[in-house]
């Protein structure tokens, strides 16, 4: 039985549909990442699960019990979960008292509380801050306290809303390490939201892509990353080349797609005459100075229109009759003397093209 299951969950705020027919299943002990851009409805969904808000319609089952239907959710149910908000929230009291709050509210005895709080403080390496006023800490430290405060009550379900948003990279890395530690130590079921898809990949077992209030696709990271179901998901998971075309021929699952006069070969079940998007990851594209023969079924001559550098990589934008983006290392860009206006040959394998039918974009 899943620990959390939602059925056709809808949330409307005035005229706006915040969430539409969200169906989600998260198993016991699983780490699930809700990924999606800002404003997709991630926070709203987490708030519904935590019973902070009531849905407009639909059901939420926690451990098999319907929880959203009852007008007054019981405190016992909520005490089996904990929710870490996006903005680090600490109460205006000492670090120790902050972390002890939930336990005090559960009326645990003082000795137990002391033991648990001290243990958690050690785990987050903030033992020295015990008596500090929590408000005087940095944003990253406050978020540490917020997570520590949530996990000290050993919730069955831990909800986290963008736990590292607004934090500097060093603090974010510490928070991620803490989350990983929590997963290993307590085997807690976690639902976390993030707009950083790689964070989802690093921390979660499964991801769900939430776009415009709908779960567009959910599954294992690889599956979503490599086979995005539709254009929206493809864009969000970083497929930069999404090229519209028409299936011209199909034989043994090899299709040819015509794109503005050019032809792309791909592996797909799509039928002839279907309008499709060919999705190609920039890192799957190889650049060469001259036309070479290789096993890659697709090779196009193109002119470099723009080069953007980030870190050790160069993002090369090409015009091959249709726009194409390739990712190469700084060193190969230098060795090939890539420059704006130069002509290069871009090639990619037919298996590197993920084909999405533009008619069948409906999510599950």
């Amino acid at each position, binding site marked *: 039985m899943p620990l959390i299951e939602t059925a056709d969950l809808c949330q409307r705020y005035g005229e706006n549909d915040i969430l539409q027919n969200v169906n989600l299943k998260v198993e016991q002990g699983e780490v699930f990442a809700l990924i999606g851009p800002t404003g997709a409805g991630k926070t709203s969904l987490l708030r519904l699960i935590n019973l902070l808000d009531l849905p407009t319609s639909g059901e939420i089952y926690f451990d098999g019990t319907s929880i959203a239907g009852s007008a007054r959710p019981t*405190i016992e149910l909520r005490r089996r979960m*904990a929710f870490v*908000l996006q903005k680090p*929230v600490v109460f205006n*009291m000492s670090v120790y008292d902050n972390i002890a709050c939930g336990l005090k509210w559960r009326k645990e005895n003082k000795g137990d509380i002391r033991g648990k709080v001290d243990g958690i403080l050690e785990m987050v390496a903030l033992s020295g801050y015990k008596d500090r006023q929590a408000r005087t800490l940095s944003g990253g430290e406050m978020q540490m306290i917020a997570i520590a405060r949530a996990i000290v009550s050993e919730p069955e379900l831990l909800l986290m809303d963008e736990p590292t948003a607004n934090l500097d990279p060093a603090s974010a890395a510490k928070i991620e390490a803490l989350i990983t530690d929590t997963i290993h130590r307590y085997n807690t079921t976690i639902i976390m939201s993030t707009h950083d898809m790689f964070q989802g990949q690093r921390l979660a077992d499964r991801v769900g892509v939430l776009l415009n209030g709908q779960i567009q696709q959910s599954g294992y990271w690889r599956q979503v990353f490599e086979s995005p179901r539709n254009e929206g998901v493809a864009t969000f998971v970083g497929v930069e080349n999404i090229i519209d075309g028409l299936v011209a021929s199909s034989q043994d699952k090899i299709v040819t797609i015509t794109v503005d006069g050019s032809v792309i070969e791909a592996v797909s079940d799509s039928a002839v005459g279907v309008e499709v998007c060919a999705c190609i990851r920039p890192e799957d594209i190889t650049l060469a100075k001259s036309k070479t023969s290789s096993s890659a079924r697709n090779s196009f001559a193109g002119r470099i229109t723009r080069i953007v550098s980030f870190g050790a990589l160069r993002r090369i934008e090409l015009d091959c009759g249709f726009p194409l983006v390739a990712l190469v290392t700084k060193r190969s860009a230098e060795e090939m003397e890539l420059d704006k206006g130069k002509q290069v040959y871009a090639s990619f394998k037919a298996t590197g093209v993920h084909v999405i039918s533009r008619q069948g974009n409906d999510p599950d």
Partner: protein
Amino acid sequence: MDAIWQGLIKALQLIISLDPEVLEISGRSLRISVTSTLLASLICLPLASLVHFNNFPGKRVLVNLTQTFYSIPTVAVGLFVFVLFSRAGPLGGLNLLFTPTVMVIGQMLLITPVLLGLTISALSGVDRPIIDTARSLGATGFQTTLLVLKEARFAVTAAVIMGFGRAISEVGIALIVGGNIRGFTRVITSAISLETSKGDLELAIALGIILMFAALVVNILLNMQQQR
């Protein structure tokens, strides 16, 4: 100016010599106003939480009305309480008129709007995420309310100080329902009023200074409480 200097010197003399009547009047002033402030706080803090945490029709009207009553004249409250407790009034049978008890009741009525209104705005100053976090960590409604009151403690204390200030400085209720009876209901403000009309400005000024001093002591105590 001379009268003020004389008053100041006399005030010091009265304080240093521990003048029994001055001590008695000041003690009564403090007792009555501290009692009324405490009792009004006991009513207003939970009431303000109820109003703040619940949505009901007429909430805005109630808050606006409360704010309007911030400026109700003390004599109007005195008159109202007088009518209520006079022999022919609905509560006349209690025989409380011209007693310290009825003065406490009058002051409570007077400062309830200030305490209620300012506590409501103090609670409104607490960020929504604080409340959400408390609830998500398993706090009951009551536990959340206590936390929010604690988070807003500076502003709540300010509300209480405001209430106390209005209580100890009022003279309308003290005169109308207290009656300014020497040794029984005479408080600093009613004494000042009397001494001024008798022409003893120095004593009146001295009492005024003592009143300020008493208020200072109470504020220091409350602030110390707040810092803890």
